[in-house]
Structure formats: structure tokens, C-alpha cells
């Protein structure tokens, strides 16, 4: 696939109980209202971009999806109570042998400005011979 395509968009307010549960599950010990560095992936899942939605949108077989890489750029702090608009874009889908790579970029906007940028690669692994 060439060119960019919007995959999903949502608006939500970051909820304290979600962040607290995430901190505990993700081994994050720091106190305070700011979200942990890897929290935004959870925000996506909790805000409608479920695993099923993601695989349907990418036309990936949900039985064989792996996470290849993930990067975050933190521009402004994001904390409990912040209203976030997230725009999820697929920037490319490329097959390579029995693998298909999807490049995804997400911008998390707070008060009209980019607060966090995410880039990830998801991999659909066809066949069952090798990891």
C-alpha cells in the first residue's frame, strides 16, 4: 500500500482508575498524575481501537499478529484528566515473503497541540513454520 490512510480517530479523557491499574500492571512505580511512558498504547485499546478493530482495519489475520517495534516522542506531559484526541494513520503496508509489515503513526493531541507521537510496526506472520 502506498500513501497514508487514516485508520482510527478518537477523543477521550484520561481516567485515573485506568492509569492506576496500568501502572500496577506495567511495573511503573512513580507516583503522580502523569501517565507512564508506554501508557498510550493502552489508551488506544481502551478508547475503541481494540485488537479486533485494528486487525480488521489492517486486514490482518488476528491469529498471527506480532509487534515489531514501537517508538514514542514525548513533547508535552500527559496526565489524568487531560482530554486527548488521537489520530491513527497507516503510513505503509508492505509484504515480504510470509510477513506483512504495517507502519502506523499516531499523534496524541492535547489542547490543540501534539503532546506525544508514536510510531509502530505490526507484523502479520502467515504460516506456522517459524517465528
Amino acid at each position, binding site marked *: 500500500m502506498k500513501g497514508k490512510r487514516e485508520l482510527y480517530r478518537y477523543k477521550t479523557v484520561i481516567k485515573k482508575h485506568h492509569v492506576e491499574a496500568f501502572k500496577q500492571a506495567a511495573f511503573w512505580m512513580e507516583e503522580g498524575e502523569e501517565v507512564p511512558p508506554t501508557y498510550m498504547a493502552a489508551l488506544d485499546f481502551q478508547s475503541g481501537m481494540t485488537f479486533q478493530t485494528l486487525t480488521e482495519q489492517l486486514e490482518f489475520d488476528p491469529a498471527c499478529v506480532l509487534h515489531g517495534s514501537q*517508538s514514542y516522542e514525548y513533547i508535552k506531559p500527559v496526565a489524568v484528566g487531560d482530554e486527548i484526541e488521537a489520530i491513527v494513520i497507516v503510513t505503509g503496508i508492505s509484504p515480504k515473503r510470509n510477513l506483512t509489515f504495517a507502519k502506523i503513526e499516531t499523534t496524541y493531541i492535547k489542547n490543540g497541540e501534539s503532546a506525544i507521537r508514536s510510531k509502530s510496526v505490526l507484523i502479520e506472520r502467515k504460516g506456522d513454520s517459524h517465528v
Partner: protein
Amino acid sequence: MFDEREWTITEKDVHSYALASGDHNPIHTNAEAAKKAGLPGCIVHGMLVMALGARAVREWQPDPIRSLDARFQAMTYPNELLRIKGSWTNGEEGIGIVQIENKKGDIKMKGTFSVKRNAL
């Protein structure tokens, strides 16, 4: 070099992470689904491995994280002893590497990070 950390992610940790994050890819929590996908068993979420790396970066130094980049090089399985290693590549500019491997030395995650120097 920063002080090396050791950590083991259990099956219970993986289930807790699936619930708290909402990442319900069945290869993490359902052994049958993992086998159907050609895996020997359930694997740990890459994002949970990355979370360990993020925690280590914050424990190693006091400045807020400006960027974090992780490549998941190999599957991480529950109950593997993981070693979290890191060092500055340019301490003055706050740029470093973080790597997670098992005790055999198989690299699970290779990452880079940068921190905000002189943050208020």
C-alpha cells in the same frame, strides 16, 4: 554502564497486563491460540517488555524521558529471567541505549532513549 536490573515476567503478570491495557491479542493469554499461530506457547506483550525498559531508564537517571524507541528482536516467554542493561551513548545530550535479554544472552528488546536535560 548503568546498574543491570533483573526481572521475571510471570503468566499472571501477562494476564494482568492484558486486562489493564486492553490488549487482548490471544497469543499472550491463550496457549491454544499461541500454538495455532505457530508459537510454542504464550508470549509476553512487547509493550510490557518495553515498560520494563522505561522503568529502568527512570531508575537509572532522574530526567524526564523525551523519546523511547524499542525493537522487539525475539519472543519473550513468561518466567524467563530477563536482564535489563543500559548505558549512555552521549551523556551530555542525554542519549542512551537500553537492552533486554535473557540469561542465555538472546536479545529480546533493543532500544534507545533520550531524556530532557535541564528540564524544569
